[in-house]
């Protein structure tokens, strides 16, 4: 087995991608001037959040997210053994390295600050979380209200009569800056609670592993996980709409494939109008839901791609008509959770341990609603609005002749957009043609070529020499990366003899069936009943297909990944974090998924 991954400096540029570096911020690149530091670190690819190549503008969110995460560790809570997580982009893929505090005296000196700061959040968690919900809603509202309009032929008369004193070109530039500021603020909010939440969970996790060395990870997850969480809410809304369609007799309208035709039919009856009213109510905010992770501008949002939720509703209607009860057995799930907690608690060896167990479980359950719910507010709802606003800027550029389509804006880096906006403003104010039309057309074509070349590159799971033991808490907590998974990557990079894969035993059970490899969210319509889903990772919006698959295999993610949570809920076997599932398994191939042992084996 190899003992190290390639150095970032050994990685070559894929043919056709020459010049890719210029598409990203200079501070996010590996460079010779920082080589000594960069080569001394172990870098892992963040396939959990950014499994695909990031476009120049999408890289902004990556950078905002990881910088915000780091800032909370380093500057807010003063996590004793950990500074932040450093981030780079290599050939369009994201690589991270945790930066630890190694000097024991320094760690010791950080402890009292951590106790004071983190302790304050733990003690006041519920109040602060309630305040967070208010802050995040206000932020989404503010983002929604940002005006993004193409520049007018002449300013409206009110600008004159109200004595406004500034013009549309200024407003547009201000709006862009406001949007970027709010995006960074969003990510500040995102990490206000997250790391502390995971720390509390990990503390309970560690306690359980000490008391019961062989306890399955999923038992711990089940004790802590909430039953009615926002993650499930969009799916619940779909089921509600399907039930309403059946009970009010408008289900037949969904026989038509085009969402517009369905809507037109519904508008012709009172029951149909009532259904549409319920639809509108479910949309805000629940269908501001991304069909992917929400980290890519290309992730399709339900509210803007109505064919996705309508397709799910159609499936649910069919299942209801076959007599299936779609309701989650909430009472049974609660009872099972209580049983698991009570039985482990009884098995502890002393009252002292039972008191510690109670305290840690209570804290984990206090912090977990944030861990489970923040994803909807940030990655789904706020990001949906953010991508929408960015597209509005794109439309303005299309109107001004800079781009052929609005999404071209995501091929510009965050710092390049103000320059293009200024170009547009400059020409608009003078009353001449901007340079942008001539400049950006060929440049965008060139960049698309580079990104396509990068997409065909197979990114290694890690770079550099791994540590003897992975002990950095955030690598373990947030990315589920352990000494074992690193060893597994090193082994798998040489290929196992029988093509089998191993990963986390995320949801129990064992099953055989044909594989369906899904690389992107817009392929999920291809999944047929009775297949095993093989994907880089799954997203909450995929929930409706879990009713028809046999099992799930993912490349990335651990015990608390979305695929793990949903498969446990649906009683399906799941193996997560196999690293190479989508690369090694082919659609149609028969595989055995053993969720008890965390193995995936080709058969026949």
């Amino acid at each position, binding site marked *: 087995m190899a003992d190290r991954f390639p150095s970032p400096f050994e990685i070559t540029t894929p043919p056709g991608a020459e010049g890719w570096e210029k598409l990203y911020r200079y501070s996010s690149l590996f460079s010779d001037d920082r080589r000594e530091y960069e080569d001394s670190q172990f870098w892992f690819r963040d396939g959990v959040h950014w499994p695909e190549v990031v476009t120049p503008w999408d890289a902004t969110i990556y950078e905002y997210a990881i910088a915000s995460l780091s800032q909370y560790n380093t500057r807010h809570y003063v996590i004793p053994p950990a500074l932040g997580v450093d981030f780079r982009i290599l050939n369009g893929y994201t690589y991270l390295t945790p930066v630890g505090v190694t000097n024991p005296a320094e*760690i010791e000196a950080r402890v009292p600050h951590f106790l004071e700061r983190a302790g304050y959040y733990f003690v006041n968690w519920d109040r602060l979380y309630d305040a967070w919900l208010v802050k995040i809603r206000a932020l989404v509202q503010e983002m929604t209200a940002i005006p993004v309009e193409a520049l007018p032929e002449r300013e409206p008369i009110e600008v004159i009569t109200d004595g406004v004193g500034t013009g549309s070109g200024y407003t547009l530039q201000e709006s862009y800056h406001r949007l970027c500021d709010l995006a960074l603020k969003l990510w500040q909010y995102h990490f206000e609670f997250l790391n502390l939440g995971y720390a509390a969970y990990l503390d309970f996790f560690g306690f359980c592993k000490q008391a019961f060395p062989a306890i399955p990870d999923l038992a711990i997850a089940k004790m802590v996980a909430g039953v009615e969480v926002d993650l499930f809410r969009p799916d619940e809304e779909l089921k509600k709409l399907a039930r309403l369609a059946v009970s009010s007799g408008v289900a037949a309208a969904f026989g038509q494939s085009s969402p517009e035709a369905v809507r037109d039919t519904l508008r012709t009856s009172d029951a149909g109008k009532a259904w549409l009213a319920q639809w509108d109510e479910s949309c805000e905010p629940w269908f501001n839901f991304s069909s992917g992770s929400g980290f890519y501008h290309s992730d399709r949002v339900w509210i803007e791609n109505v064919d996705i939720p309508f397709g799910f509703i159609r499936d649910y209607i069919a299942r209801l008509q076959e007599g299936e009860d779609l309701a989650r057995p909430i009472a049974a799930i609660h009872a099972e959770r209580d049983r698991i907690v009570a039985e482990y608690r009884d098995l502890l060896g002393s009252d002292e341990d039972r008191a510690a167990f109670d305290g840690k479980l209570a804290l984990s359950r206090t912090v977990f609603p944030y861990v489970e719910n923040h994803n909807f507010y940030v990655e789904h709802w706020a990001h949906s609005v953010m991508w929408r606003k960015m597209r509005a800027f794109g439309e303005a550029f299309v109107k001004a002749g800079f781009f052929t389509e609005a999404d071209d804006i995501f091929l510009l880096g965050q710092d390049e957009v103000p320059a293009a906006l200024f170009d547009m403003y400059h020409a608009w104010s003078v009353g001449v043609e901007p340079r942008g039309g001539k400049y950006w057309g060929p440049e965008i074509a060139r960049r698309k070529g580079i990104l396509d070349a990068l997409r065909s590159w197979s990114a290694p799971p890690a770079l550099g020499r791994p540590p003897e033991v992975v002990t950095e808490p955030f690598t373990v907590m947030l990315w589920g990366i352990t000494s074992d998974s690193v060893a597994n990557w090193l082994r798998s990079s040489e290929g196992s003899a029988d093509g089998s894969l191993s990963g986390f035993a995320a949801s129990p059970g064992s099953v055989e069936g044909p594989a369906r490899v899904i690389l992107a969210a817009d392929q999920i319509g291809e999944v047929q009943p009775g297949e095993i889903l093989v994907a880089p990772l799954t997203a909450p919006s995929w929930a409706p297909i879990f009713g028809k698959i046999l099992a799930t295999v993912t490349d990335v993610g651990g015990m608390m990944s979305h695929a793990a949570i949903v498969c446990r809920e649906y009683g399906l076997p799941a193996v997560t974090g196999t690293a190479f599932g989508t690369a090694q398994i082919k659609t149609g191939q028969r595989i055995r998924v053993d969720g008890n042992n965390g193995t995936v084996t080709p058969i026949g």
Partner: protein
Amino acid sequence: MTAQSDTAARARRQNLVWFDHFDSVEKACLGGKSASLGEMAGAGLPVPPGFAITTHAFRAARDGSGVIDAIRAELDGLDPGDTADVSRRAMAVRELIMSWRMPPEIEAEIRGAYRALSDRTGRKRVAVAVRSSATCEDSPDASFAGEHDSYLWVRGDDSVLEAVRRCWASLFTDRAVSYRVQMGYSHLDVEMCVAVQKMVKPRSAGVAFTLNPGNGDRSAIAIDSAWGFGEGVVSGDVTPDNFLVDKVMSLITQRTVSAKQHAYRLGDDDQVRRVELGPGQATAPSLTDAEILAVARLARAAEKHYGCPQDVEWALDGELPDGENVVLLQARPETVWSKKKITVSAGLDPMASIVATLARPLHARKP
């Protein structure tokens, strides 16, 4: 008459009781061994299937035979110190009992029950163990342990009837007779119940602990298993397969399949012998996943029934249908870890514990 005493009265009149239809009111007519088998079966502990021939049947046979006075006369004024005389007179009594004419309805019931047991196991003449299970109102049953006879590998209804009679007669073994005289018990107050239980022919067998004997983890059930009889596992001359099952989640968390070079199997002469295994079977797991979980359920049921960690011997009977083929042979309290007080919380306050966790996180380990 209340419903309960009605049931009790009926129970006292029953000649035969199946262990898996045991009711505690029947305890009085069963004797210690049979009552405990019935109680285990009643608690969901899957003992090998079988039935008891009650003390009511014993009394009916005895009283119908008209030999009570002869027995009393034979044993009158016995000197327990005169072993030759004890031996002669006890044998005479046993011969008297062997000559009892069994009441025809009782004989028919025993033959019927034996056939039912054979049917249940899919065997024409299932091998059974016929064991004495004496009862005495004056003394705890344990005192009589080993005083009476047991017969193994009994096949056919005629042989079963013969063995039942021998068990009855074994109330009057030399030792039992001397013991009663020494203790001042009446010979005719003791009664004999007889347990008839399927002989287990294990495909696999072994032991199970309701905790991990390696570290005392009470959430684990540790199973050692090998092919054939459990002798090799118990004595340690076979390296068994080892499985760890999480009690609460009923999940197999660890499996080690060993090379089991030999097995203990039953020969044609009803003797258990050591046989060498080919490489294929030696390295094949001796239990399927479903069987592992069934053994774990059995061990867990024993722990719940007895209220403390157990060390059980179990077997997977190749002659019983799936779903009822994992049987409990013996359960005893685990004594090593049960006595230890295990504490892991180390007295850290919650924040100090979180700091310690961050400094040294336990990894989400793959199994």
